């Protein structure tokens, strides 16, 4: 079985050199130029909070919301970890953007044949045994690529080794069922623009709970409707019949008199 890959981003180590973004843009053939936020041409961007740099990118959820909501199944979760988008299937409903708990997918708003754009976790490279371009480009080791289990262990060890420095939380370990991108920090996550109130269970079951009732609604509802119709219809039939009988009696009486 393929081991689940992940990246550990240690916010305390990042120096804000932006080489991750540059490497990403080159590898994925995106329009060059430094950008401060995710966009249709930017898969990863650095946000600065008082000298602290936070890398934003797709979290590559273990149970991805985008993949569950897409009506045409344009998203797939690969066994290695990356969540990939197939533009040939996409109809452009943008439910993925609406549903993503991390507000990651971007859209080509000015295109007449637009695509969703987001980080691909360098899927091609990692299946070849290489690191994602950003992890390779990181000179200070702030982004580290590896197996998810091991990176989780390492993150816990780093926190344990310097409990006064680190916040005791690995962001991405549990959020919406866990993600492939993990963060540790010395500044509280809520001050760095992270959504810290996200539930720990994955989101797709929320809609599946409703959807899984469809077959029972159809069968129970169908029989119920048919039953009601049968009863009400039968009632009118009986009434109709009685009415006709009365008519016939009246009719025969009338004829009898003449």
């Amino acid at each position, binding site marked *: 079985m393929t081991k689940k890959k992940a990246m550990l981003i240690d916010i305390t180590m990042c120096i804000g050199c932006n080489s991750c973004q540059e490497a990403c843009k080159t590898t994925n053939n995106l329009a060059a130029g430094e950008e401060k936020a995710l966009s249709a041409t930017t898969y990863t961007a650095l946000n600065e909070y008082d000298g602290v740099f936070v890398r934003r990118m797709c979290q590559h959820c273990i149970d991805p919301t985008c993949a569950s*909501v897409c009506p*045409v199944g344009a998203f797939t979760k690969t066994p290695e970890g990356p969540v990939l988008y197939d533009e040939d299937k996409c109809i452009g409903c943008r439910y993925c953007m609406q549903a993503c*708990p991390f507000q990651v997918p971007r859209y080509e708003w000015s295109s*007449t044949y637009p695509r969703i754009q987001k980080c691909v976790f360098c899927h091609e490279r990692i299946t070849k045994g290489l690191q994602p371009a950003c992890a390779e480009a990181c000179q200070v080791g702030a982004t580290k690529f590896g197996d998810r289990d091991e990176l989780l262990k390492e993150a816990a060890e780093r926190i344990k080794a310097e409990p006064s420095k680190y916040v005791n939380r690995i962001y991405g370990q549990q959020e919406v069922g866990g993600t492939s991108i993990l963060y540790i920090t010395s500044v509280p996550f809520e001050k760095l623009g992270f959504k810290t109130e996200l539930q720990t269970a994955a989101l797709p079951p929320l809609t599946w709970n409703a959807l899984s009732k469809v077959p029972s609604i159809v069968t129970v509802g169908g029989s119920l409707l048919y039953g009601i119709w049968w009863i009400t219809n039968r009632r009118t039939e009986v009434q109709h019949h009685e009415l006709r009988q009365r008519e016939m009696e009246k009719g025969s009486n009338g004829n009898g008199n003449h």
Partner: protein
Amino acid sequence: MKRFLSQLTFWKTLAGVILLAGAYSTIVRFFGGLGAATNLSDEFPWGLWIGFDVLCGVGLAAGGFTLAGIVYIFNVKRFEPIIRPTILTAFLGYVLVMFALMFDLGRPLQFWHAIIMWNPQSVMFEVAWCVMLYTSVLALEFSPVVLEKFHMEKTKKFVKKITMPLIIVGVLLSTLHQSSLGSLYLIVPDKLYALWYTPYLPVFFYVSAIGVGCAMIIFESFLSSRAFNRGLELDLLTEIARVAVMVLGVLMVMKVVDLADRHALPLLFKPRTETYFYWLEMIVGIIVPFVLLAQRRVRENQTGLFWCAAMMIMGFVLNRLNISITGMEGWAGKAYFPSWMEIMVTISIVTAGFIVFALAAKYLPLFEHEKPHVRVKPEAEWIEDLRSVSQLN
């Protein structure tokens, strides 16, 4: 030319101006992309076209399945006189929803992908299927009117034969997708403001659709009675209003219980934009019409009925816009207000609906319903009998 000008009424001019602006916006949308025509953004990907055109459009067409259920399944045949225009409005509603969706979809020419590329996990997938199937069902339900016009008796007879299964399938499909439009938002527990986010979203969407279905039947009957100079079936509408009161009552109780259950009642008194919009929606759409329609005096009064129906519809639209826009703005961290082009496209689509309905009313036997056959026929025969008897004398 003179004749043309003399026929140009205020309303026709207005419709012309709207459609022109809509046509311009359409060109901008399809040649410049969504970004050129709309105020949508990465933070706010769903706007007016989803919030109004789809969520409200489908909801406001709920009169179709509500009345079909009342007439055919509960066998309340008195309502037959208004079933044809109601089914037509529902059908037009769905056609327009799909038309509007072509504007909103980024790749509209690939919409058929939903037919062959399945993802049963997706609510959107279910909605797409239900809407496509139900539109076909509505077309069949309405087809006798067209077949009658062109004297295709054989085909008409066949459609009549399959009426019951059609109606049952129609009610089921409506139940599924009316509620599923609410399920669409189950996936955003953190994004949608807590006054609106509840696991019962699908139930609320379904029940409120039935309520607004009743309101739409009343509202449409009034409009068409004025527009086409026909009588108003006030006694029938009074009874529909009784159903509406029940639905409103149920909805109100469910909403309060749900808020209490989720410990969200204090949110009702938090001074925030969301709170005001929530109250507005509740007061206009549920509380006031409930109190008014609960009184027989109002139900039996033309003006009262009309305004209560209008309020229910406004409240419903507010509810859907609150869920799709007001309730999502806080989390998105970005305000959204539709661009004038988004608004013009929406108004144009509604206008197109009115025009098609007016044309249908003019050229199709929409209001010349068949005579109820249950009682009238024997009576007529009886009169015949009497006549023959008197002639004998």
